[in-house]
């Protein structure tokens, strides 16, 4: 079954994570990096949830990744694929949808790349992924 495009709910943009969504508007996927423990975290926070330091900044990531797990929601009007994708060059996984794909051909470990999906109204686009 080929995934149909869904109109996604616009994310709530709050002051702390505004830059993440501004990057998305520009077609860039960023993640928060902590200069103190030299690690990424996700979702983005000002204060690093790993070490507690506030020396954190957004860094652009490659936009490539690998499916950590997924589940195709079938008993809904438009079936879709929920997933966690582990981002290349990091040890962080983000919740997302796998789009523009055959829902019956997805696999854990599959290589994917970011493709931004429109949201309702004038909300910023969402980082979704599609098989490479």
């Amino acid at each position: 079954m080929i995934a149909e495009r869904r109109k996604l709910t616009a994310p709530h943009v709050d002051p702390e994570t505004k830059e993440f969504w501004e990057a998305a508007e520009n077609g860039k996927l960023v993640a928060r990096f902590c200069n103190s423990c030299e690690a990424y975290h996700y979702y983005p926070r000002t204060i690093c949830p790993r070490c507690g330091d506030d020396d954190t900044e957004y860094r652009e990531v490659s936009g490539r990744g690998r499916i950590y797990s997924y589940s195709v929601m079938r008993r809904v009007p438009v079936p879709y694929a929920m997933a966690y994708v582990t981002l290349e060059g990091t040890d962080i996984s983000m919740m997302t949808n796998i789009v523009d794909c055959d829902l019956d051909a997805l696999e854990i470990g599959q290589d994917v790349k970011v493709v931004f999906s429109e949201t309702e109204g004038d909300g910023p686009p969402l980082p979704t992924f599609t098989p490479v």
Partner: protein
Amino acid sequence: MSINGKAYIAGAFEHPTRKAIDKSLAQLHAECAKGALEDAGLTKDDVDGYFCAGDAPGLGPLALADYMGLKLRHMDSTETGGSSYLVHVAHAAEAIALGKCSVALITLAGRPKAEGMATGTAPRNYGNDAPDVPFEFPFSPTITNMYGMCAMRHMYEFGTTSEQLAWIKVAASHHAQHNPNAVLQNVVTVEDVVNSPMISDPLHRLDCCVISDGGGALIVVSPEIAKTLNRPLVKVKGAGEAPKHQMGGRVDLTYSGAAWSGPAAFEEAGVKPGDIKYASIYDSFTITVLMQIEDLGFCAKGDGGKFVADGNLISGTGKLPFNTDGGGLCNNHPANRGGMTKVVEAVRQLRGEAHPAVQVPNCDLAVAHGTGGSLGTRHGSATLILERE
């Protein structure tokens, strides 16, 4: 300091309703409180501590203390989703040990069925101020696809099969056939489960719990009061609680917070998983049970599929009789929160008051374990070890 032996569960009540169109939420709480107090042989005027969670209306303990006419000297509205009520038992034991109260009432109630809630298939928005919501809710996470991702990863890492998961529902259905209040009373087979409609891969309709209204209540008392009541003595022997979350993005869906709350509870109780005669295990989905059985130490991580297969959870035939009321999978999951009924059935087993067809002989040591929130994102885990004296 330990809570081992500092408090007893003297009253337990499960509301018989499964669809409460003609009752208010506060009324359900009060009916559950009345049921548990009568079970204990106490009255509302004996209550000096009250515990409730996010299912309570308004300002929780304030609204319900007002509604029920309670005069209190201790309140606790710890909210960890469906596991809240197991946490409440532990916190009540702590408060009693410190002399902050001597008769603690814990209530749960809800009416998702009457309200037509699409519990498993509609995304829930916990509010935009929840920091995770902007990064999750727009992708349509639902309870079923979040637990589906846990099951997919478990299958990928450990070779767990849908047939093994199905055995958990089969065991619950064997127990529910003896419960006249259960939503699902028919015995089902592994084939029935794997042939039921797929909701979200790899979870079928029969891998999911029921949606039901109702609730329950517990009375936790000091040892002195417990010994004056004409009820079997069910002692709180150990407790553990822990949140598990995404750990800053280092997502690992193969285990639950039971890996932390379980060992803490067993250590406090001074017993081992092998000593347990009966287990109430949170069962929002079949995969929930499987992961928690591993995490509580009943088998090694990854061996849960083999452990639950071939009827090993069925009372009378299996090594680990579980959820003998039919659990959330078949009996009742009031307010979408299964923790209360886990404690209630454990108390029935320890008293010897479970249905004779499922009563575990000489059941003197039980575990009750709950999860609240979602194993796929963030959840509160709580474990209780209970002993009949």
